[in-house]
């Protein structure tokens, strides 16, 4: 097992907490290839903002936790929240908006989440939504000497 990395805890109603997401990813994903990092960053933001929008009632809040696990063949982002059940993998695809009026940010976000993730797994565990976003690594990252 490699270094499990640092978990980020976000209060969904706290704007400053949400803004820590990208700086957290900068540090946690620093060893990953640039090209992979971009798609992961898009998917991460979409998954977290999806939880902010769907998991909690308006004016309510809850906890979102984010983790990155890097293993030899893949990187995985785990996004968990304590809100009501919402399975983004089961939500209908928004498709391409025919007009700006139809272009809803939630729908665009799911489109991007699906585009950039190799696969997405949703589980409802202990009253929490748990999303795992997987991204294959082109080559295994360098092993530190034993």
């Amino acid at each position, binding site marked *: 097992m490699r270094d499990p990395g640092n978990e980020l805890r976000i209060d969904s109603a706290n704007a400053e907490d949400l803004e820590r997401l990208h700086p957290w990813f900068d540090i946690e994903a620093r060893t990953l290839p640039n090209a992979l990092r*971009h798609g992961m960053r*898009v998917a991460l933001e*979409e998954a977290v903002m999806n939880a902010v929008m769907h998991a909690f009632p308006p004016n309510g809040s809850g906890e979102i936790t984010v983790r990155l696990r890097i293993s030899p063949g893949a990187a995985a982002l785990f996004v968990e929240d304590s809100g009501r059940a919402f399975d983004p993998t089961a939500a209908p695809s928004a498709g*391409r908006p025919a007009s*700006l009026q139809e272009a809803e940010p939630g729908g665009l976000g799911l489109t991007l989440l699906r585009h950039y993730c190799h696969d997405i797994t949703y589980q409802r565990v202990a009253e929490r939504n748990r999303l795992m976003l997987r991204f294959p690594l082109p080559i295994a990252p360098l092993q530190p000497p034993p």
Partner: protein
Amino acid sequence: MAISILELDGNVTKVVLSGRIDIAGAREIEMPMAVIAGSRRAVVVDLSAVEFMASLGLRGIVVSAKSIFSKRGKIVLLMPQPQVEEVITTTGIDELIPIYRDEAEAIAAVIAALG
């Protein structure tokens, strides 16, 4: 993230965005974009120095575009980097807010809308 606003000849407004339009960046552009959308009808958004944008940042542009279109104005996007362009084309927003690679063409397109 930085935003600068240039007034060009022909009542064209050029908005130059740069850096990362992430969660923090999207919040920073929200108010200036709303002010531009409320007061201008011919807008070119220069994305050439933007390194990152996801749906939250795109939303800021879409909201502005709705307002500008409702006044029979036009807004176009200029020279996004490939990674940002992929985000825009994946969502299909480029079919509603066109992307230009040439600044003169982008300016001509928004001036044409002023009639």
